[in-house]
């Protein structure tokens, strides 16, 4: 069926026994689930039972690449992590850029599975089919980048760079939103994959291979790559110029910027200008950062050259800026860079970390906690130094950080009344868009296959401002919009391609055949949206098996409060409004009124025979 694009096998490493096996991946699974996120969901449905807890030895981790990962096209960098995540206690899919996915494929594998747990802290080195284990107990406490450097020091020179993954102190301390860092600047950020890797006592991994990823038509791939580079020069020029940080200004002007823990959704432009992309560019920018074979290079590396945070260096994206910045009452880019750098060093997701520090700030503001509860540290909105210290407290499980480190679920268990100050769905905190100004984002957060995520859930903002049939303050029509965006995203996440460049390959809701034909020799185009829908439904089936129903497709209490200031003053999302969106969403998905896929929907998508799910 396929004459390129797939290696058709995975490598499985049992950390308890240090046994390594190589297994085939049936072609039919590749056709049905495409790769990366899709293959991960299919694997998870068979190998991770609903009873398993995230840190149980029975939990497993899968890293799957897609058919585009590592091919000679532009930005073919992505690969996907699938595991049971500690942030939600459920299925977690997460994707990352960097060289690891491409190198894994050059080593000869579409996927890597980790199971069991090591007795000692371990580094794993995969070179083609060879696997070595290194005991690295003395690496405990290292930042992810330092663990990477230590590992690279011990590896032989090869014609191309080794790719790495590594974790930091937050993961070692089982922080529920600890990340896995890929190479020197990308991450599986959301959901706590880093803590799961730590539970297996894996501090770092490296991979290298010497076999180019096969493609069906190399000449055509070369032509497509050249056309994509030309397209991206203009279509993604703005990404290269200022990165995603340039969303700060419009999202604030549209009244949807989380400010002071979403108590407000707008800040005076003369204040928030301190965290504009232009400020980052003019005062702090040192270089752009590019992922594997990417010509866009949208990462904006900023370094603080003077003042309180001198020396801090990070690559702040929009979400990190919004949640470590205005949501914490901070409008100083130097402070945001410093906080972003600290999250990277400790190894934590900036989105959840920013959300939960903002929650602590609100608790202080309301007098619900005091310095006595937090080892003497007061944490107030606008206090950047306190924010940095609180981030350390979380990673070290000190003061209130001992509770915060367990994530939303841990906080709600310890202090149920704090729930009204946490912006989340299913335990995963919001991205940096207030849904009261884009109601579609509310439905996206509520129904995302991993919690309140703007990527997996569906980024509705552009369509809610440009689509002729949408009104951003209306609830009608959002069910179809969110379904379409989710299915589109599900197949793009399964290709192994960065979403920023998908337009250059026409991976839209009406994809063209050219690219996948050149890579795999198979005309995937007519099936891609159906594959996306199949993946969305399989993920929902997994969620249902893990106890999710309509009651969990929810928004936090703050969304029912009218926005008190700015351009969207007075807007809110009531339970009734969410119900209208959910009813429409479930109907267009072919799910029952509790959000369970109907049998005819599963039959239509070829999922009726998925074991243990129906």
């Amino acid at each position: 069926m396929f004459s390129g694009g797939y290696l058709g096998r995975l490598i499985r490493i049992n950390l308890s026994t240090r046994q390594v096996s190589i297994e085939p991946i049936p072609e039919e699974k590749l056709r049905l689930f495409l790769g990366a996120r899709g293959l991960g969901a299919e694997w998870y449905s068979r190998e991770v039972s609903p009873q398993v807890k995230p840190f149980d030895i029975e939990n497993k981790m899968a890293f799957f690449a897609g058919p585009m990962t590592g091919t000679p096209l532009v930005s073919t960098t992505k690969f996907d992590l699938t595991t049971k995540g500690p942030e939600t206690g459920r299925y977690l899919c997460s994707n990352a850029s960097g060289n690891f996915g491409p190198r894994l494929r050059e080593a000869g594998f579409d996927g890597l599975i980790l199971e069991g747990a090591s007795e000692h802290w371990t580094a794993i080195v995969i070179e083609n089919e060879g696997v070595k284990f290194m005991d690295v107990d003395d690496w405990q406490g290292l930042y992810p980048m330092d663990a990477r450097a230590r590992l690279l020091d011990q590896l032989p020179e090869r014609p191309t760079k080794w790719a790495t993954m590594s974790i930091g102190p937050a993961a070692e301390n089982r922080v529920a939103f600890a990340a896995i860092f890929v190479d020197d600047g990308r991450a599986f950020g959301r959901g706590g994959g880093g803590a799961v890797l730590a539970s297996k006592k894996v501090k770092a991994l490296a991979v290298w291979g010497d076999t180019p990823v096969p493609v069906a038509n190399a000449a055509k791939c070369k032509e497509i790559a050249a056309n994509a580079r030309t397209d991206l020069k203009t279509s993604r020029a703005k990404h290269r110029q200022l990165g995603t940080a340039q969303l700060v200004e419009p999202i604030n002007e549209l009244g949807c910027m989380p400010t002071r823990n979403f108590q407000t959704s707008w800040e005076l432009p003369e204040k928030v200008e301190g965290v504009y992309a232009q400020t980052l560019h003019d005062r702090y920018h040192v270089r752009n950062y590019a992922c594997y074979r990417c010509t866009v290079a949208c990462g904006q590396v900023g370094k603080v050259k003077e003042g309180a945070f001198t020396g801090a260096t990070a690559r702040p994206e929009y979400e990190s800026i919004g949640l470590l910045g205005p949501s914490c009452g901070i409008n100083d880019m130097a402070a945001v860079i410093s906080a972003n750098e600290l999250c990277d060093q400790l190894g934590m997701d900036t989105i959840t970390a920013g959300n939960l520090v903002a929650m602590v700030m609100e608790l202080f503001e309301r007098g619900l906690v005091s310095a006595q509860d937090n080892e003497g540290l007061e944490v107030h909105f606008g206090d950047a130094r306190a924010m940095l210290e609180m981030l350390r407290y979380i990673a070290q499980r000190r003061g209130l950080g001992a509770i915060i480190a367990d994530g939303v679920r841990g906080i709600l268990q310890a202090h149920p009344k704090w729930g009204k100050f946490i912006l989340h769905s299913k335990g995963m905190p919001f991205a940096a868009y207030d849904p009261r100004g884009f109601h579609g984002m509310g439905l996206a957060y509520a129904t995302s296959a991993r919690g309140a995520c703007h990527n997996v859930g569906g980024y509705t903002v552009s369509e809610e401002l440009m689509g002729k049939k949408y009104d951003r303050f209306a609830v009608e029509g959002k069910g179809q919009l969110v379904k379409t965006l989710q299915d589109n995203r599900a197949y793009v996440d399964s290709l192994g391609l960065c979403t920023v460049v998908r337009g250059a390959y026409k991976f839209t809701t009406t994809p063209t055949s050219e690219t996948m034909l050149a890579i795999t020799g198979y005309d995937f185009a007519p099936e891609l949206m159906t594959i996306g829908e199949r993946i969305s439904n399989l993920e929902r089936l997994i969620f249902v098996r893990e106890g999710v129903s309509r009651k969990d497709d929810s928004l936090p209490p703050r969304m029912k409060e009218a926005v008190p200031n700015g351009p969207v003053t007075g807007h809110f999302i009531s339970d009734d409004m969410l119900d209208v969106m959910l009813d429409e969403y479930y109907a267009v998905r072919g799910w029952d009124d509790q959000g369970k896929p109907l049998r005819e929907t599963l039959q239509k998508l070829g999922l009726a025979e998925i074991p243990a799910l129906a």
Partner: protein
Amino acid sequence: MMVINVKFLGGLRQDMGMASTTLDLPDNATVADVENQLRALGIELDTQVNIAVLNQCGLSQLPPDQQIAPDDVVMVFPNIAGGS
């Protein structure tokens, strides 16, 4: 005649070399007139490269013949999705 303000946000401000400008429009100006004047400034509106917003609603979502008022405000910015 009436004058309305146009704000350029994000990377578009750098391209335009200014944070804002004004459009001179006839008294009975419509959404279509605003779009035409923005195009005349070199702003790409016919693809998904930029987003134009009039009084918090997408310009392309409004009827082309909708009347413009003197205190209306237009914002234009690049169509960018967020990262983390």
